[in-house]
């Protein structure tokens, strides 16, 4: 990474100076195309907002925008028990994130620093978990965790941690590998000790990777739907995670679209903002395993 960016300034200088003459028009065409595409990507979620602000009395009107706008779907949302679901989702996402960090940090550090027999086998095992999704083994997960008899929230914490471990291990492994071991050794010579070198030198340098793993796991667990639906079936809505509870607005004969989309916004807007922080590093975590 560091070595490839070094010669870049010289190259960039020659690249930009030559075709300057026809630059403006071309870059405006590109910009406009990109803006149009960006708007297309936002539109469905804008429609979600429009629906959440539409009064219930206008749900039957065939208009793009409502005649009146109302905020009441958001204020009455809490009387439908959504607060409890948000709490449950927070517990699951935070619990899974903490487990993933505790488990992946030592594994990633060890595989980055040491060469030992079974290292490749372990990394392949981790890669396999990324390839097998919960949907493929739902019957097994359901039967196993029903046998355990754990409360659904706890089961969902463990399952989400397991299926997001791979991402964390790969991205942390890449970060630890890029930090020279000499740096730690120098710190140890200076009297920091092994633990001191780890906490004062290595972990701060790997912080971007840790934050990425943390946010990614949180979002994935927050959005997870299938296992949540299977394991929290029959629970009172306040003890179901958000993704499942939102489906309770869909009745047999009618759908409470206003509350559904208001709750949907509450569920999606925070994770979209979180995702913007890790945007650029996510791809490397998802593809590193397959490339190495």
């Amino acid at each position, binding site marked *: 990474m560091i070595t490839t960016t070094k010669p870049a300034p010289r190259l960039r200088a020659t690249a930009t100076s030559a075709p300057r003459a026809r630059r403006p028009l071309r870059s405006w065409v590109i910009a406009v195309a990109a803006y149009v595409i960006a708007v297309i990507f936002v539109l469905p979620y804008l429609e979600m907002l429009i629906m959440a602000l539409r009064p219930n009395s206008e749900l039957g009107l065939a208009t793009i925008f409502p005649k009146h706008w109302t905020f009441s779907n958001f204020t009455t949302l809490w009387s439908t028990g959504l607060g409890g679901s948000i709490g449950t989702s927070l517990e699951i996402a935070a619990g899974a994130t903490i487990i993933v960090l505790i488990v992946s940090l030592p594994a990633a550090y060890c595989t980055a620093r040491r060469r030992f027999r079974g290292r490749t086998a372990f990394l392949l095992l981790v890669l396999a978990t990324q390839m097998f999704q919960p949907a493929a083994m739902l019957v097994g997960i359901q039967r196993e965790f029903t046998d355990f008899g754990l409360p659904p929230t706890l089961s969902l914490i*463990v399952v989400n941690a397991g299926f997001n471990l791979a991402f964390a291990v790969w991205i942390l492994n890449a970060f630890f590998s890029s930090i020279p071991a000499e740096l730690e050794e120098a710190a140890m010579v200076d009297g920091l000790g092994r633990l001191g070198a780890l906490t004062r030198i290595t972990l701060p340098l790997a912080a971007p990777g840790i934050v990425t793993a943390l946010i990614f796991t949180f979002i994935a667990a927050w*959005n997870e739907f299938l296992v949540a639906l299977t394991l929290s079936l029959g629970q009172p809505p306040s003890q179901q995670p958000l993704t499942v509870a939102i489906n309770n607005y869909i009745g047999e004969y009618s759908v409470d679209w206003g509350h559904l989309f208001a709750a949907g916004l509450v569920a*999606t807007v925070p994770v979209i903002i979180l995702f913007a922080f890790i945007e650029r590093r996510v791809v490397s975590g*998802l593809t590193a395993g397959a490339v190495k």
Partner: protein
Amino acid sequence: MLAIRRLTPLLWLSPAIALIGVVVLWPVVVMVQSSFQQIGGEGFVAGYNGTTNYTNLFHEPDFVSVLLRTLIWVVAVVGVTMLISLGLAQLFHQRFPGRRVTRWALIIPWAASVMMTALIFKWALDPNVGVINVILNHIGVVKHLGSNQADWLGNPTSALIWMMAVAVFVSLPFTTYALLSGLQGIPGDVYEAASIDGATSWRSYLGVTLPLLRPAILVATLINVINVFNSFPIIWEMTGGGPGYETSTSTIYMIDLKEGDVGQAAAMSVFNFLLVIVIVLVYLSTTRWKEQVDR
């Protein structure tokens, strides 16, 4: 002392191995075991019944059509996603004012839960008041078809096409980002050399960019195939796989079987599982993965 040193990696790895064992490996064992058992919808195990679940499964009248539909679903969704993403990646790789903001817009369907995106489209396709029909009505498209409303999700063919479109929509951000990171890895002097040799921009794209992008394309395709094969929320929310099983893929079919016959659902899961492994292995060998990706 030496023996202890050799065992320390195990100490560091054991939490991860334990977690993978409990969450990923053991469910596979339970699943394979269940596929040879007779289990009612309530989860009551009535005992082993050999390969009955498998023979029953293969004789289900919808089995073959569900498999074919799954194949079309995966190939169409992944194929269209890759094509559009190649274009998008090329576009967002350029420098232009406001690029950061447009890239943020691009990630929204990735960060949002797929279930919510599916529900928006379900609403937007409502025959009477859905915004897509309202707009089409304004333009006059739906009227030309001889009616002022279109029940897109009520007809299996149009429902599948719309659901594929939603599946492409939610797959685009990751794929585009994967290809973007591939494009960033191509050094600029390669293009300089190509333009000195007189290559036009289209020729240099085919001759230089695409071959160098191959590893990124292969990895993105593989991850997409696995995701799209196991995709659940879109079909579940928009049609529930119906009418009948006419819009079910094998994942939806398996989940529906689970309601009535857990043993047979387990057999279907094992079958799906093997299918994915075969698809991945065939893909890896036809693309000569190791030479391409390791380089």
